[in-house]
C-alpha cells in the first residue's frame, strides 16, 4: 500500500513538473530589461508622431506585455494613453466624451516622464540609456503639442466659430493672417489675440464682415516667448478668438508654430594658457546684426564678469588679464552670452581654457639605479629660474629622509635613500617659490639603491653569527625564546633546565633498567661512557668497536644496546631477564 502511495506521489510530482514546464515554455517571462523597454517606448513614440497605425499596434502589444511588478502600473497607464490618443485621432469619440478621453490622455502622458525616469534608473548602462531617455523626452514634448492641437480640433468640432491661419509655421518677424469664420449670425467676435497658453501676448485690430473676421498679427518678439521655446527654437503659440453668441462666450483657438533662430556668433580663444599670461579673445558675429552681450569666466571660484561688449561682424579682440579675473588653475570656461532680440533668442557659447600653472624651467636629474657607499642618492637640479627657489628632496623608503636647499642656478643634493643593502626608494623633489611667482612643482621617481656598507656589514654579521652559533643552536634558541622574552633570569633558568635535561641519565638515572644494565656492561668494557651529545650507537661505533677485541662480546654488547634502545623508546619493552642473560653471556665469554 505504501509502495503504491509512493509511486502515486512520484507520478503526481512528475505530472505537476511537466505542467509547469509546459507553462514555462508557452508563456513569455515578464520583461525586466529596462533599456529594452526604453528603446521600445521610443519606437512607439516615433510611430505615434509619424501618425503611423503601426504605433497603435505596438502600443497594444506592449500593453499586453508583462513587465516586472514595480513597473507594471505605470507601463499600463502610459500605453493605455497611447491607445486612447489613437482612438481620438481616428475620431472614435466625439463631444464631451472626446474631451474626457483627452483628459485621460493628458494624465497618461504626464506619467510618461515618471515612466522614463523609472526605466532610466533601472537600466544596466545608465549613461547610454540617458541618451535614449533624453531623445524620448524631446519627442514627448512634440507629442504633447500634437495632443494640444488635437484638443483644438476637438474644441472646434461643435463650435459656431472656426479659426484658421494662412500657415501652420512662421518665422520670427512674419505676420500671422487669422480668419475667424462665424457660422452663426448671432455671434459677434470681440477679440483676436496670440497667447502662449499661459499669458496673452497682446491684442490686435481686426476687421469683420457678416461671415468672417480677419486680422494680421505679428509674431511675438523672441524676448517675450523665450521661456517657452524648445531646444530646436520652435514655440507653440495659440491664436485665440473670443466671440459672444447670445449668452454664451466661445473661445475657439488654433495652434501655430513660430521658429526663432539663435544668433550666429563666434568666440575664439587658445585652449590653454599659463598662469599670469594674457588671454586673447576674438569675438565676432557671423551675420550683419550687432548684438549686445557679456563675457564672463566660470571656474571653481564661481562666475566673474569680464565685461559688456557689442558683437559685430568686425572681430573684437579682448586681452584679458587672467590675474585680475579670478582664473583658477585647471579648466576655466569663457562664456559669451547675448540677449534675445526681436527675432533671435538669447544664446551663450562656452569655450574651455585650461589655465596651467607657471613652473620654472628646471632639469631634475635622479638616477634610476645607483650603487652607493652608504645609501645616499644624488639629486642634481639645473636651471635659471631668475628667483631663489626652495628645493626640498624627500626619500621615502624604510625611513623617510629629507634635505632642502635654496636653488639659484644649479643645486646638488644628497639624500639618504636606504640603510638596507638593496631597496627601492621613492624620491620626491618639491620646488617652491617663496615670492609666489612660480607655482609649486613636484617631481616623483623611484630609485633602486645598493648600499655597499650595509651589504658588507650584513655579510660580516651573517658570517660571524654562523661561526658563533655553530654547535650552540639549542642555547641560541633558548636565548631567543627565554632571553629575549624574559631577560637574563629566564635565560639562566633555561640553560639550567637544559643542563639538567642533558645530564638526566647521570643524575636521575636512565629510567630504563635495561639501559642501566647496558651502562653497567660499558663500565666493564670501556673507560669512556657515552657523552651528553652522543647516541648509544655513535658511542658503540667509536668506542666499543675499537676497544673490545672479542667479536662475540661485541655482538652481545650490540644486542644489549638494541634491547636498551627498545626499552627506552619502543612501545614493545624487552624482558629484563633477556638483558640479564646477555649480560651474563658477556661475563661467561670473558671468563672463557
Amino acid at each position, binding site marked *: 500500500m505504501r509502495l503504491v502511495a509512493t509511486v502515486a506521489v512520484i507520478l503526481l510530482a512528475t505530472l505537476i513538473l511537466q505542467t509547469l514546464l509546459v507553462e514555462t515554455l508557452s508563456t513569455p*517571462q515578464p520583461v525586466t*530589461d529596462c533599456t529594452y523597454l526604453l*528603446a521600445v517606448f521610443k519606437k512607439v513614440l516615433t510611430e505615434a508622431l509619424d501618425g503611423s497605425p503601426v504605433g497603435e499596434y*505596438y502600443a497594444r*502589444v506592449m500593453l499586453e506585455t508583462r513587465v516586472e511588478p514595480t513597473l507594471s502600473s505605470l507601463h499600463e497607464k502610459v500605453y493605455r494613453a497611447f491607445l486612447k490618443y489613437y482612438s481620438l485621432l481616428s475620431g472614435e469619440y466625439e463631444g464631451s466624451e472626446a474631451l474626457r478621453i483627452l483628459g485621460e490622455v493628458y494624465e497618461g502622458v504626464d506619467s510618461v516622464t515618471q515612466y522614463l525616469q523609472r526605466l532610466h534608473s533601472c537600466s544596466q548602462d545608465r549613461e*547610454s540609456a540617458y541618451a535614449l531617455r533624453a531623445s524620448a523626452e524631446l519627442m514627448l514634448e512634440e507629442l504633447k503639442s500634437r495632443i494640444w492641437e488635437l484638443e483644438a480640433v476637438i474644441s472646434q468640432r461643435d463650435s459656431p466659430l472656426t479659426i484658421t491661419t494662412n500657415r501652420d509655421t512662421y518665422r520670427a518677424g512674419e505676420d500671422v493672417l487669422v480668419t475667424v469664420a462665424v457660422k452663426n449670425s448671432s455671434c459677434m467676435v470681440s477679440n483676436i489675440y496670440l497667447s502662449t497658453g499661459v499669458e496673452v501676448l497682446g491684442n490686435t485690430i481686426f476687421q469683420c464682415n457678416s461671415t468672417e473676421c480677419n486680422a494680421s498679427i505679428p509674431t511675438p518678439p523672441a524676448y517675450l516667448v523665450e521661456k517657452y521655446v524648445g531646444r530646436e527654437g520652435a514655440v507653440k503659440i495659440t491664436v485665440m478668438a473670443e466671440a459672444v453668441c447670445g449668452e454664451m462666450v466661445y473661445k475657439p483657438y488654433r495652434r501655430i508654430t513660430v521658429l526663432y533662430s539663435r544668433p550666429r556668433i563666434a568666440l575664439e580663444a587658445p585652449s590653454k594658457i599659463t598662469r599670469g599670461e594674457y588671454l586673447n579673445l576674438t569675438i565676432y558675429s557671423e551675420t550683419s546684426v550687432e548684438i549686445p552681450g557679456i563675457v564672463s569666466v566660470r571656474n571653481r571660484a564661481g562666475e566673474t564678469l569680464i565685461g559688456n561688449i557689442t558683437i559685430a561682424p568686425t572681430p573684437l579682440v579682448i586681452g584679458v588679464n587672467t590675474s585680475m579675473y579670478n582664473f583658477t588653475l585647471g579648466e576655466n570656461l569663457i562664456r559669451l552670452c547675448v540677449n534675445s532680440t526681436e527675432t533671435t533668442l538669447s544664446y551663450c557659447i562656452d569655450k574651455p581654457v585650461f589655465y596651467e600653472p607657471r613652473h620654472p624651467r628646471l632639469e631634475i636629474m635622479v638616477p634610476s639605479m645607483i650603487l652607493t657607499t652608504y645609501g645616499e642618492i644624488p639629486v642634481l637640479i639645473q636651471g635659471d629660474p631668475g628667483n631663489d627657489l626652495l628645493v626640498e628632496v624627500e626619500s621615502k623608503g624604510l625611513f623617510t629622509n629629507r634635505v632642502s636647499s635654496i636653488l639659484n642656478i644649479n643645486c646638488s643634493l644628497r639624500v639618504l635613500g636606504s640603510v638596507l643593502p638593496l631597496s627601492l626608494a621613492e624620491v620626491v623633489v618639491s620646488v617652491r617659490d617663496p615670492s609666489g611667482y612660480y607655482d609649486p612643482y613636484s617631481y616623483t621617481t623611484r630609485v633602486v639603491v645598493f648600499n655597499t656598507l650595509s651589504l658588507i656589514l650584513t655579510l660580516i654579521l651573517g658570517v660571524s653569527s654562523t661561526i658563533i652559533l655553530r654547535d650552540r643552536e639549542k642555547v641560541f634558541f633558548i636565548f631567543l625564546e627565554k632571553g629575549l622574552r624574559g631577560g637574563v633570569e629566564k635565560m639562566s633558568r633555561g640553560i639550567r633546565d637544559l643542563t639538567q635535561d642533558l645530564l638526566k641519565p647521570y643524575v636521575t638515572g636512565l629510567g630504563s633498567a635495561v639501559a642501566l644494565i647496558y651502562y653497567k656492561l660499558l663500565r666493564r668494557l670501556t673507560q669512556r661512557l657515552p657523552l651528553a651529545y652522543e647516541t648509544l650507537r655513535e658511542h658503540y661505533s667509536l668506542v666499543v668497536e675499537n676497544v673490545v677485541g672479542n667479536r662475540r662480546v661485541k655482538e652481545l654488547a650490540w644486542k644489549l644496546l638494541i634491547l636498551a634502545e627498545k626499552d627506552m623508546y619502543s612501545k614493545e619493552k624487552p624482558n629484563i631477564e633477556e638483558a640479564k642473560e646477555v649480560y651474563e653471556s658477556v661475563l661467561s665469554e670473558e671468563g672463557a
Partner: protein
Amino acid sequence: MRREPSPILAYSVLLGLLTALSLIAVLPTNLDYYVLDTGDHGYSTLYHESSLTLYSLKELEKHQAESALLVVGRDRLLDKGELDYVINFSEKGGLAIVFGTPEVILQVLKTLGLDAELEGYVYDPVFNAGDSRIVVAWDTRLNTTLVIDTPFALRLPSTPALAVHPIVYTSNFSFIDEHGDGLYTVGEYLGEVPVGFEIEVGRGFMLIVSAKGVLTNRVLEFNRDWFSAVRAGRSILIDQSWVRPNLLLYMKSLLHGQHGISPFYLAFITLIATVAIIYVARTVYAE
C-alpha cells in the same frame, strides 16, 4: 598445466556483456541533434514521426530527391564530401532544411558562394515561448508562425551569387544582441530580423534557418503546422552521419528501433556473444 575455464567466469562475462549492451541501449544520451536524445536540442520527437536516419550522407543517392526532405541540424562542421552530397541532393530537386550553430550555417552558405557574417544572436522579450531566446517567428511565404530556438542574425552579401529569399522573420520587438551580453544595449538593432532564407540550388531548394533549433524537441511541438506545410508530403531523412565515427553512439542507434530498443538486435547480439564465449571456453578446456 592449463587451468580449466570456470563456468562462473564465462557466465560473468556473458552477464557483463549483456549489462553493458543494455546500458548502452537504455542510458539517456545528452547530445544535440541526436535521434535518441530526448533533451531540448535532440531529435527524439522528430525521429518518432516516421523518419529515416542517414548514417552516411552518401545514402542520399539511394533516395528520390524530389520526394524527400533532408533535415540537417549540426553543431559540428560538415566535411567537403558531406557538403557535396547535400548540395547534389538539393540540385536534384530535394529540399534540405539546414540549421545549427552559426559556424555550420556560415560554412554551408560559404559553400554555396555566399560570404555571410554573424551579426549576433537574436532575442525577443515580447514574442517568445517562455525564454527570450526561444523566439516566435513568421514565415511570410506560408503565412504561419513558428518557434525557433536561439536564432542569430546574418549579414548576407548585398549581391548574392544565388537567389536568396528571406522568408522567416522575427517580430518587430526582437533585437540583435551585438554585444553578446544577453541584454538590449543602446544602439543595437531593434526590429524584425530575417532568420530563414530560401536558397534556390539547381532544381531544388535549401531552407537555411539561422537558429540552433527549429525541428528539435524543444520547439517541434510548436512547429508542427509549419513543418507539415514545408514538408508537403515528402519523406523525412534525418542526417546522423556524424554519429557513425562514435562506435558507442552508433551501436546505441542500431540497438534502438524507431519506437524504442529493438529486442531482436539485443537478443541476436547476446546469442552471438554467448556462442563465442562457450566456444572459447571449450577450446581452452580441450587443450
